[in-house]
């Protein structure tokens, strides 16, 4: 078993069950992808989902902002509540949910527009016209995403001219420009080199002062480095959910230990 450096979980204020997943099950057609998941995610903390490929991490993550609605023939049971309100509440607009719950994808997906337009996209969507406001949001978001210094001279160039790491940070900037409360990240560093990965991890650390972050990762080191709490899934089931320290130092389930020590996955 590899020894991992684990950040001590810092206790900050905020609700313990900011996101509350209750007995959540999920089907793609007849295929059950998730089975009775129950976990609470505290406010302004980083929670990592780990587990072998195909265990349902992304599925669960995409359910948090209902991105799975785009898939045909899906079905769920149980409930997910954010700030005590069910995301399946018929009165809740999916669009407003997604404005509160931002998402960064595994493969960076900047729009084929300028860097500036990418960052302010969410504001444009809600009809913000005020140029000064847009510029201000663009700058603060890019600063928060630690990208400002690299791109400030070419804000109006195409975003597609950026490097892979820069694109991913641009996507993060784009997500936080929307001022969400929660940021979902699905393997945000899987396509990046170590230096870019380092920058993004640093970023996550800073962002958790403001956002509740759920990150899916297949890198245990990353989970250990960035998260306060970690959930381990296996074959669509939640095996263990605890503080990162506990999961990596002293897992209570043998499967968790096996996975963490690299014996399968």
């Amino acid at each position, binding site marked *: 078993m590899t020894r991992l450096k684990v950040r001590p979980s810092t206790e900050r204020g905020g609700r313990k069950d900011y996101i509350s997943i209750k007995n959540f099950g999920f089907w793609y057609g007849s295929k059950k992808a998730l089975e009775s998941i129950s976990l609470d995610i505290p406010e302004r903390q980083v929670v990592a989902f780990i587990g072998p490929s195909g265990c349902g991490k992304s599925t669960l993550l995409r359910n948090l902002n209902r991105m799975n609605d785009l898939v045909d023939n899906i079905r769920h049971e149980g409930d997910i509540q954010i700030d005590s309100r069910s995301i399946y509440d018929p009165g809740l607009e999916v*669009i*407003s949910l997604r404005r509160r719950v931002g998402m960064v994808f595994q493969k960076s997906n900047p*729009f*084929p*527009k300028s860097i500036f337009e990418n960052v302010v*996209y969410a504001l*444009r*969507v809600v009809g913000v016209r005020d140029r000064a406001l847009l510029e201000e949001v663009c700058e603060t978001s890019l600063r928060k995403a630690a990208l400002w210094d690299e791109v400030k001279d070419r804000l109006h160039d195409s975003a597609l001219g950026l490097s892979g790491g820069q694109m991913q940070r641009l996507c993060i900037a784009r997500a936080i420009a*929307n001022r969400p409360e929660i940021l979902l990240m699905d393997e945000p560093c899987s396509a990046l080199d170590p230096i870019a990965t380092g920058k993004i991890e640093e970023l996550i650390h800073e962002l958790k002062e403001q956002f509740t972050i759920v990150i899916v990762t297949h890198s245990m080191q990353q989970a250990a480095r960035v998260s306060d709490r970690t959930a381990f899934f296996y074959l669509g089931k939640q095996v263990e959910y605890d503080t990162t320290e506990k999961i990596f130092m002293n897992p209570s389930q043998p499967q968790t230990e096996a996975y963490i020590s690299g014996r399968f996955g």
Partner: protein
Amino acid sequence: MDSSDKKPLQPLDESRFQVSPWTLRVDTWMGRLISFGGISVVLAVLGMLVFLVWQVVPLFTGAKVTSQPELRLPAAVVAFGEDEYGALPFIGLADGTIKFLQSSDGAVTETWTPELAGRHVSAVRAYSRQGLVLLGLDDGSVQFAKITYRVEFTSQGDRHLSPQVKLEKPLTVGKLTSPVRDAWVAQSANGSLVVLQQELNGHPVLTATRLLERKGLGGRVTVIPGTPSVVAEGVTDIAEVLVPSTADTVLVRRRSHEVLVYNYNENTEAFALTQTFKPFANTAQPEISSAGLIFGNVSAVFANRQGAQEVWSLYPQKQPDGRSLRRWGLIHEGETLPGVPQGIFPAEGNKCYLVVAGDRLQIRNMTTGSLRWEGPAPKGVQQVIFSRNYERFTALTSEGKLVRWKLEDRYPEASWSTFFGKIWYEGATEPAYTWQSSSGSDEFEAKYSLVPLFYGTVKGTFYALIFALPIALLSAIYVSQFLRPEYRNIVKPVMEIMASLPSVVLGFLAGLWLAPLVDTHLISIFCVILILAPLGLLVGAIWAGLPQPWRRQVKPGLEFVWFLPILAIFVTLAWQLGPWVESLLFTVKEGQTGTAIVDFREWWRQVSTLGYDARNCLVVGFAMGFAVIPLIFTIAEDALSNVPQSLVSGSLALGASRWQTVWKVVLPTALSGIISAVMIGFGRAIGETMIVVMATGNTAIMEANPFSGMRTLSANIAVELPEAPAGQTHYRTLFLGACCLFILTFVINTLAEILRQRVRDRYKVI
């Protein structure tokens, strides 16, 4: 993992790193094959263009003229003519003798002298085309000598012409019995006219007499002169008399440079002055030095001593009293000639004329003003005649010579202004762009303006696209972005089948079913079209306003199932509303009786003063739209579907609605593909032939009126190429039309491609 089940790697086999020669060979050959294919396509397109240009270029070459041996004439000649092939010219001497000359050496083959019973010939005029020599006699009568040729073939197979001259009975046509100084004859389908110039008290007297033909017993035709009328009575300064072959007009040019027009009046059976005009009235030098009637005899060219030219033509003109009468009017001011004009001689069979100016000869086209040929003039040209087929011309000189030329001018009507310019054709009331390639009459002048065809092409394409683009693009967006995949998988193949529907079938349906339907239910159709967009928006708004739980009932992508019945109801309502709307808005009073009639077509005719055709732009727009929609739809749908899902998810995850995602992300990303789709649809519409041929009246008119037909370049080619004789102006003009179509599509496609590249570079997705 168990490492025991991992077998050690196979020992490295050197040959695995070698590329087999076969692979390499296939690679090179495939590369070559592909290059060959690509180059072939480029060559084929270029070849097409080269072929088109090659067909068109001769149109813009001038006439080619080669001189032929001159014939020295045996005697002083006052008139001359030729047979149709120029093999046996004849000359008329002052005493009425006619001599036939061998065209090769000028040897006299035959001589004919009239038997005049003691009278004497005082005037001779030859009409080569009619094979007629008019003899004016010293007792004031005239006699026709008719020349006919018998063709014989010698034992060697050579053609041999033997002329025969037949002197007809003397006709007393004048009022005087003094010698005839000059005589003219005009023959037309409705009678003949003889004009005589005699002298009384030292002043010229002109008499014009119509000749009436009476069929007697046994089919014999006797010619009976009508009552002679004195023309230009009291006019003592007659410079020239022009007698158009219409046989109802005499033009008298005075030395004061005024032209008097005398017309035959059916009622009084006499000639009366109808018009006086003065060419060059507005110029400093109104001295006419030459004048000539042009083939067709409704136009005359005048030239003044400065070499300025004016063309006057007979066309309907508004008179002060409001009537419209055919009067002579100035229609062209020609280019300045290179010297003092000495004679204007009409060509045969077209609107060209030969003008002798200074020491130059020019062949010019009257209508376009273009110079067909210019060459040196022999000394002392007195008269020039063209052969009937416009392949030769011969000049009689004062030096007693016949100078002969061979002429090769197959496209006398062609010029840039013919095809692209506004031209005032003779007989027309104003300059216009006209396409009219044929008619029953020999004297008809074909009009080859491509502009109305361009106009029709653009108009047809415009109406087709204005109908097709919104439908095709909106449905492509809907199907690719909103419809559930299982329905998309039905819609797409159906559309693809539609795209392969032969356009003949569409044209057939459009002409036989759609056109009458549109004709009778126009307002209903308008109502339906007008209601669609507001209905869609309204239903959308209501839908968006429904509470979430209600909307949840309908699966995303299946909303249309609910919309369809609503649509059906409203479309039916709108259709039924049509007649009511028509009676409300489009009731007109009938012209004479004053009864009110409900008819949009009549209303449109009265309100817009434009026409209404049953086969109009709307029918073409609908029918061509149907041909174009599947094409645009399929390609645009592909382009939209190919926008990476990750971009769509990215946008949705940022809280954009589906429509915002489509508008702000999907459309810009797919824009280059959509432009391609539109271009392909455009290309199809602009080149579409059968539908236009069958669904429009194919009238080459230029008006923006949506309720009139059109003729497109492509339909024009399809309709007229079969009847255009190969290699002639008409035929080559059709190729010019094809060439223009080619260039038009090429230019527009190139522009669109540049735009597309720009867009693609801008919205390129990695």
